[in-house]
């Protein structure tokens, strides 16, 4: 019985890191040292998950550390470690870094639990643990009204949607008489079952900023510190998509209309996200809309309701989170307007080329992570003959190249306006960015063994 607790050692490490940093006035180097320690502990947690046992059994009937959960947990902990390392090096827009890093680690612990959750109660608690620190991170600059405004909007919308979701969960529990995913069943529940699923799905889709529930994201992101956006827009998404995949695989077999609902949200997100991103001049807004579009791609893989699709979605969530976080970190270093990146290639050539690699991965160019991610997403949709989704996915990917290449053009041929924010060189931040480049390439090159491990290789 007690042996089940070993599965939570990585989460315990992350929480220990968060607490140590939070109460760490005594730590060497104070603010900066604390952030390094947090990064080290999160990195250790990621390593521990990655080398830990696969396909573990159910623990206490509530969590299951299987191979998909292992991949997603590694992604969550690893990206948190990279983010903490960057913050340790560059600081957090004139505020203390310690608190931001502690919040991020708490959110990461929630996200890692969420990846394993197999019970409605665990899912709800983990979901709230992973989103509540995000509200504070979004309003982290206390004197900045627009940041606070974005945070309040994000908070109100997020709380509204989690209560709507919770209302749905209470009906799901009432219909099936249990909160375990394995025992959820809405067969023969008629209208009440439909209501329960609709409410739950609306809440979860809004958390993932899928259209038509996306409108909070661009406003919230545009007000916040870019370093906060780098974390909030990426890491919770990995955990979110993992748990949606779990929940859908539990209830979708009872309800064919669910596929249609997810497919509609997918189409709306792909179209709206990509088209709305085209005219944006603020990198945070651009990445917010691009995030909506990528949620659309992720939902495309969930729509067929197959195990292959679920694994492909989790893989792509990680493949999307890496470059997306990296681009926002660059915005935090260089400035949030696209024009702030003008002549980046002349000032910091290696950084400019790294941005090119990340953007190419987001578009989906081989051999980067994004290409294989999209390949398997589209593959899962083709297997279930969802041709409309596939065609739209490919067309909107081409459209997305339009706004990503605007950034590239600015970096290489842009006219510099005024003095750009050339910050203090920081080795730690450089290491973090190099890790993100390496991750984008390595996940791409290692895509087929990774996906075989997830049990998702297409025939």
């Amino acid at each position, binding site marked *: 019985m007690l042996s089940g607790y070993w599965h939570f050692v990585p989460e315990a490490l992350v929480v220990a890191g968060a607490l140590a940093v939070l109460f760490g006035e005594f730590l060497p180097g104070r603010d900066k040292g604390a952030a390094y320690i947090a990064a080290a502990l999160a990195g250790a947690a990621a390593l521990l998950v990655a080398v830990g046992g696969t396909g573990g059994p159910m623990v206490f009937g509530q969590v299951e550390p299987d191979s998909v959960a292992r991949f997603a947990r590694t992604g969550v902990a690893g990206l948190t470690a990279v983010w903490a390392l960057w913050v340790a090096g560059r600081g957090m827009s004139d505020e203390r870094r310690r608190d931001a890093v502690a919040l991020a680690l708490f959110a990461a612990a929630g996200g890692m639990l969420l990846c394993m959750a197999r019970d*409605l*109660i665990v899912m*709800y*608690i983990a979901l*709230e643990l992973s989103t*509540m620190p995000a*509200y*504070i991170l979004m*309003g982290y600059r*206390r*004197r900045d*009204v*627009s940041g*606070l*405004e*974005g*945070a*309040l*909007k994000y*908070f*109100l919308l997020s*709380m*509204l949607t989690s*209560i*709507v979701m*919770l*209302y749905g*969960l*209470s*009906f799901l*529990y*009432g219909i099936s*008489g*249990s*909160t375990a995913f394995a025992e959820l069943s809405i067969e023969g529940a008629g209208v009440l079952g439909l209501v329960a699923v609709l409410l739950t799905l609306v809440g979860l889709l809004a958390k993932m900023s899928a259209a038509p529930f996306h*409108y909070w994201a*661009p*406003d919230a992101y*545009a*007000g916040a510190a870019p370093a906060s956006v780098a974390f909030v827009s990426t890491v919770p998404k990995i955990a979110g998509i993992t748990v949606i995949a779990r929940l859908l695989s539990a209830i979708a077999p009872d309800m064919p209309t669910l596929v249609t609902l997810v497919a509609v949200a997918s189409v709306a997100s792909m179209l709206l996200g990509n088209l709305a991103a085209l005219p944006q001049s603020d990198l945070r*807004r651009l990445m917010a809309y691009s995030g909506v579009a990528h949620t659309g791609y992720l939902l495309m893989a969930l729509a067929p309701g197959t195990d292959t699709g679920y694994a492909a979605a989790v893989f792509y969530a990680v493949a999307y989170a890496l470059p997306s976080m990296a681009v926002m970190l660059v915005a935090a270093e260089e400035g949030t307007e696209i024009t702030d990146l003008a002549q980046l290639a002349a000032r910091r050539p290696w950084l400019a080329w790294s941005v090119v690699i990340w953007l190419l991965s987001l578009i989906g160019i081989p051999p980067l992570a994004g290409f294989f991610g999209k390949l398997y997403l589209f593959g899962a949709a083709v297997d279930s003959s969802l041709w409309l989704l596939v065609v739209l996915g490919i067309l909107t990917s081409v459209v997305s190249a339009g706004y990503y290449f605007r950034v590239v053009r600015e970096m290489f041929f842009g006219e510099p306006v005024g003095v750009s924010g050339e910050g203090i060189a920081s080795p730690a931040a450089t290491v973090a960015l190099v890790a993100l480049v390496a991750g984008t390439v390595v996940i791409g090159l290692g895509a087929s063994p990774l996906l075989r491990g997830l049990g998702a290789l297409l025939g």
Partner: protein
Amino acid sequence: MTIGPSAFLGLAAVLFALGLYGAVARRSAVMVLMSLELMAVAVNLNMVALSRFVTPTEMTGQFFAMFTMVVSAAEIGLGLALVLAIYRQTRSIELSSIDSLKG
């Protein structure tokens, strides 16, 4: 006379709808927070009622309600802190006056 589950579910639905209306229609941030709290209460009532009528021997729904109560208390605290921080800067808690960000 016995009161069946439909009475409780109906009351919860009414409370939920009232809260939703308040959350969407109210202009003051504090009133929106109170409306959200009303919705949370409706959900808790739903859970406890379902727990009583669906699984009377186990207490799953009641445990669920306990957890959600704690979480929503924490969330409201966080929300009020955000509202206070904004009030210190702008001397206003009207949502309509908080619109410097436009999508």
